[in-house]
């Protein structure tokens, strides 16, 4: 950390830059980490397992039919320029998000029209949905409230202040923006009289946080060891093992919700053959998957991650069994193998590449060759959006943005076709029907049962090799206190608010 006259400044070392800070436009992990620092939402995810905590909204109620949601705001919240955070600000922010139709818009736009939001009084705001939508609340932590006055003041050609908000903020969060040097570092200065106060106490509160871009893991490690940064993300699995032994360094290691799967194209090519898919799933060396992470991962026991409500351990999910694999292969259209299947992964994703090597090695006994192909993410998504161009096997990490099982289950809905996580083009009318039913029901017991059936059926259809859930890891100096994990955040993302430095 850096000592300044105002106090300690915590330094976070990360690999990914923040090109656009605007909360209604982008929400990748680095961006969201900074957004969470400078903005507040109506509610916020906290804790492990993740729970939705009241934030700007101190309480809320739902109508009988599940279509109307009313939120009551706290009265002491203030934007950084001193304006109060009121119902109009909330309404404006949601309207802005929906109208811009970017970033987070997809979460609500099918159920909420801008006209459906209304200001009841200064501190009460009402949302009227187009239909009942149980996961509604679980998306709200992603919607930040901006100060309409500031945004409107900086509007150019009716752009809702997009240009300005790219590297400015109009929030009410615990931090406000300091230095903003794109591609180098981003600084957030603590707000002295943050309306919600500081959990670590005013005395321990840092003067600010610097998010420093360090692209090379070797440089990250060096910086951490020299105490130039206090916490880093994105080291290799082996680095974590290595650096854990160093003095003064602690590893944060938590079970996450990001699932890894090798998605098959179930509609076209060799992998349209379920027996081949099964053969591959049984040939896969699952232990090596864990070894790639040096043990910091756990095998998926169902499409739905363990930390999510409604998860069950699906019995009979494939594990390595060469005999079975060969049996299935014999039943498939390629009884003697002899084919080459592409395995596409995002260029630069080290673990995905290594898993490709594991797959390649695993399929050798089946006489199936694997061609490992890295692709730029946009190209991969573009190819994966059509049945014809979607490769036989694609490695995909998926992080659900809410704790509701629908967030995962819907990936197997036919409506999701074209999305990157639906590259398998899974088509099982029974499953689709169950998903629809589960998402509109507000009775948890009924839903839980449906989700159990959904999980079992998906595993049986083997649209992908169910891989593992990788642990979320950070390496930090041991004097850095207050770290709070929550699985619903993105990989790498840290809640900066409760952090503080314990000086010896």
């Amino acid at each position, binding site marked *: 950390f*850096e000592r*300044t006259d105002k106090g300690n*400044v915590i*330094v976070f070392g990360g690999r990914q*830059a923040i*090109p*656009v800070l605007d909360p209604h*436009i*982008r*929400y*990748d992990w680095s961006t969201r980490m900074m957004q969470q620092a400078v903005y507040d939402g109506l509610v916020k995810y906290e804790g492990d397992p993740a729970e939705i905590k009241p934030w700007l909204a101190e309480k809320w109620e739902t109508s009988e039919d599940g279509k109307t949601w009313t939120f009551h705001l706290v009265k002491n919240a203030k934007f950084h320029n001193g304006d109060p955070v009121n119902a109009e600000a909330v309404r404006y922010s949601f309207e802005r998000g929906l109208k811009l*139709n*970017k*970033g*987070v*818009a*997809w*979460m609500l*736009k099918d159920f909420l029209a801008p006209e459906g939001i209304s200001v009841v009084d200064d501190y009460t705001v009402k949302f009227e949905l187009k239909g009942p939508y149980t996961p509604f609340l679980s998306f709200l932590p992603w919607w930040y409230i901006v100060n309409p006055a500031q945004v409107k003041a900086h509007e150019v050609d009716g752009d809702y202040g*997009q*240009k300005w908000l*790219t590297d400015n903020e109009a929030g009410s969060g615990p931090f406000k923006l300091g*230095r903003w*040097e*794109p*591609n*180098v*570092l981003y600084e957030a200065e603590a707000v002295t009289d943050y309306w919600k106060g500081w959990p670590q106490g005013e005395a321990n509160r840092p003067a600010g946080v*610097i998010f*420093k*871009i*360090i*692209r*090379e893991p*070797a*440089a990250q490690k*060096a*910086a951490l060891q*020299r105490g*130039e940064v206090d916490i880093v993300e994105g080291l290799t699995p082996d680095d974590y093992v290595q650096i854990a032994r160093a003095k003064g360094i602690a590893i944060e290691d938590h079970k996450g919700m990001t699932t890894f799967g090798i998605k098959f194209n179930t509609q076209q090519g060799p992998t349209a053959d379920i027996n081949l898919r099964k053969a591959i799933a049984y040939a896969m060396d699952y232990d090596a998957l864990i070894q790639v992470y040096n043990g910091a991962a756990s095998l998926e026991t169902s499409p739905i991650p363990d930390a999510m409500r409604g998860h069950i351990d699906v019995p009979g999910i494939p594990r390595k069994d060469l005999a079975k694999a060969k049996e299935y292969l014999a039943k498939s259209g390629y009884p003697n193998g002899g084919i080459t299947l592409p395995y596409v992964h995002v*260029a*630069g994703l080290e673990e995905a590449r290594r898993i490709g090597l594991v797959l390649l090695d695993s399929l050798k006994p089946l006489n199936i060759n694997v061609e490992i192909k890295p692709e*730029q*993410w*946009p*190209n991969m*998504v*573009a*190819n994966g*959006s059509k049945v014809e161009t979607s490769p036989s096997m694609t490695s995909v990490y998926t992080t659900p*943005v809410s704790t509701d099982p629908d967030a995962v289950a819907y990936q197997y809905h036919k409506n999701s076709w*074209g*999305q*990157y*996580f639906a590259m398998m083009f899974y088509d099982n009318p029974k499953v689709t029907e169950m998903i629809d039913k589960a998402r509109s029901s507000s009775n948890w017991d009924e839903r839980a049962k449906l989700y159990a059936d959904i999980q079992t059926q998906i595993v049986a259809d083997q649209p992908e090799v169910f891989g593992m859930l990788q642990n979320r890891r950070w390496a930090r100096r041991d004097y850095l206190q207050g770290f709070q994990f929550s699985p619903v955040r993105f990989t790498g993302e840290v809640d900066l608010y409760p952090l503080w430095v314990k000086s010896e």
Partner: protein
Amino acid sequence: MLTFAFRKILTLLGTMIGIAALTFVITNIAPGDPARLVAGPNATEDMVATIRSEYGLDKSLPEQFIVYMGDLVRGDLGTSIVTTRPVLEEVMRYAPATLELVFVAMFLGIVIGVPLGMLSAVYKDGPLDQVTRIFSISGVALPAFWFGIILQLMFAVDLEWLPVSGRLPLVTRPPEFVTGLLLVDSLIAGKFSTFWVSLQHIILPAIVLSFPCLASILRVNRAEMIEVLQSDYIVAARAHGISSFRIVALYALKNAMLPTLAMIGLRFGWMLGSTVLVETVFDWPGIGLYAVSSALSSDFKPVVGVTLMIGFFFIVANTLVDLAYAWIDPRLRKA
């Protein structure tokens, strides 16, 4: 003279447009869909379409090209889809860092390369010549990225003499923006401590970048020196009793400097290209890094923009070399 300048500017413009066309075509032949990337992983098709139309990506390629060229003529390099900012603005922000690095590296290359080249020409085939030959060719053969990492490990991680990466320490505020070159700006602002730390930061990347350039400057200078030293007018100068030192350091050097200058001009452009690697290794926030990260996210406007910018600097550098040529060589000085 005026028509000369006018013609130069005209060719420069022509080349720039050519480069723009070239890179635009090259970068757009692929099927990449940057709109998809920035829309986020869960975006629906209509959200992606919103972004596409905002950036004109829904138009056909020839249309996009015409729009791009039209904007280019007006000095607009388009907008980066990832950062949503005008490319020109961003390139301008990152260019000083790159230029500073290149200038320092070039300085090192010339200051070391020219005298060494001279020496090894004078002591041709001697042990010094053999050593500098292997040294200089090593310079060209060393993979910059690898060499950078090794230096980093040695001097920054292990010995902790120098910083690992970046341009300035975290808390040091950059001096007031005048030229964008930290070394210069900090001197202008009178902040010697800032000058000192930024010098420490630039040392390693500059060495890595300058090494191949130093090598080729050395080689060219040596070869030219050897040739010049065998030329008739040097024989004549010797016959007229001019001292060896004067012959080598003044007469021959000036003649040998002509091709060396040309090489410096060439290497300048090459260096701008290599910053792509060096900036990646040293986290140097310049246009190279900007180009790589844009290329990796299929954001092609910045790639075209950076290529143009590099081309521009390169042409300017070569024009300067041409002028220097005319300044040194009276035969080129006629009206």
